[in-house]
């Protein structure tokens, strides 16, 4: 993974962060950067404060009809991942913590419980 170090490289947020996959500290995929929260006002420099993950963050980026459908089908949940949680930026964005404490991957764990009683659900078959 190519690392970006503050002060040495320029970070293109649109190309290098937005729509990139998030992985937690154990390399488990836990979402995609759907939007970003930025702080600042006119005359000041802007600062990214958090990554936004979840269907609720798609709305402003989609045409009105798609946004409506996405809201109806997928809901409006947004998980806010503070910028300080970002450990590395490369092809994937690695976080410092595990997914669960950040509120990411909850649906996976819920659906996983449905499968728990089926034989073979705990066994990986590479």
């Amino acid at each position, binding site marked *: 993974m190519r690392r970006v170090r503050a002060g040495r490289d320029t970070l293109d947020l649109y190309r290098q962060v*937005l*729509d*990139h*996959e*998030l992985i937690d500290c154990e390399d*488990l*995929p*836990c*979402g*995609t950067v*759907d939007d970003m929260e930025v702080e600042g006002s006119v005359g000041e420099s802007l600062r990214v404060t958090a990554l936004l*993950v979840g269907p609720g963050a*798609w709305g402003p*980026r*989609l*045409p009105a009809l*798609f946004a409506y459908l996405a809201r109806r089908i997928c809901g409006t949940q947004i998980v806010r991942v503070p910028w300080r949680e970002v450990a590395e930026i490369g*092809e994937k964005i690695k976080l410092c913590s595990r997914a669960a404490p950040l509120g990411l*991957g909850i*649906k*996976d*764990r819920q*659906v*996983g419980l*449905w*499968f*728990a009683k*089926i034989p*073979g*659900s*705990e*066994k*990986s*078959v*590479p």
Partner: protein
Amino acid sequence: MNKILELCLGILTAMGGFVEIGELTFVLNAGSKFDYRLLWVVLLGVIGIMVYGEIAGRIAAVRAQPVFNVIRERAGIRLGLLTLAAATLVCLLTCAAEIGAIALLWQLLSGWAYRPLLLIALVFFLLVIWFLPFKAIERIFGLLGLLMIVFVCAAWSTNPNWHEVATGLLPSLPPGHSDQQLLYAYFAVALMSSVMLPYETYFYASGTIEDKWTPNDLQFNRLIVIVGFGLGGLLAAALLVVGKQILGPGQIEAGLPGTAALIAATQFGRAGLWVSMAGMFFAFAGAAIETALSCAYNTAQFFGWPWGKFRAPRQASRFVLCWIVVLVLATLVVLTGVDPIKVVEYSIIFSVVILPLTYFPLMVISRDSDVMGVYVNGPITNTLGWIYFVLISIAAASAIPLLVLTHGGQG
């Protein structure tokens, strides 16, 4: 030694998994209706799938990034979501057609009713994907799909005029009025789409990550796509030859998988019938599994969910739920009684529309030296990639008008 064995198995698997019900039907009918005049499209399509398959495999091996991860990253959520929705619909329809075709094959063998056989096929696929490892699925269905080679033998045994066959490698319009030429154009677009079906690229790239390929495996990647897909193309060409030689004189339309089985039976008797039925079963079953898994791979990769057969189902639960839902929906589609061959014809025509949306992000990322480093496209891949991008864009723009003008390929 192990590496050579792996390579041979990879090549044979790529060849065995090349043909599915849509390609079988279109290629046989193309031979029956237009003699060898569409052979050049098969060649064109095979080179196209080699180019994009190699690119997708290389990106996956170098960056561990599958196709829909790249699409999301480069095309953004708007265009990406549109591509995902279209790809899912096309894969779902293709999966439905494969399940329907398998039930039709079983019906020929057993004489049982069609609908209960669809449900048995659904249970079969659920059990196979749940319990079998990725490698086993890939190998069993890919290698046993090689029984389709019986059609290469059948083509050879019909003693075709090889000069005429070679002439078919150059584009030429059929004689007759404009309706016939429109139908020729429709078949050319459909044939190209059936050879370059996008799910092949999705599945191949995801499989590269399932098999944990690294940049050290890039030579493998190149050899497998060139030799494996090349041999698959030979199989498709053989089907076109038998379509011309056996179906052409009687103007027979290959509307059912049984027609293809009869071709083998006319050449090799009962043994040919059994081998072709078994080959078709494994080829169609492989395609059904690949399309169902491709839907799940695409969705999980787009939204950043854990995915892959290398993870326990409980750890990649939404990925598993996706392929289960796709298999159930695909079975419901064919349970309505719709003709699976009609379903696959539409899915192939709609597939061509999403080809440019799928391949443009791949081209952009694979030629970007910032992200690919020394593994960036060479001049040949770049040139071929963009030429094919123009060709598939033209095919995409003309697919729906041709579908309407030819009344769904009826002329």
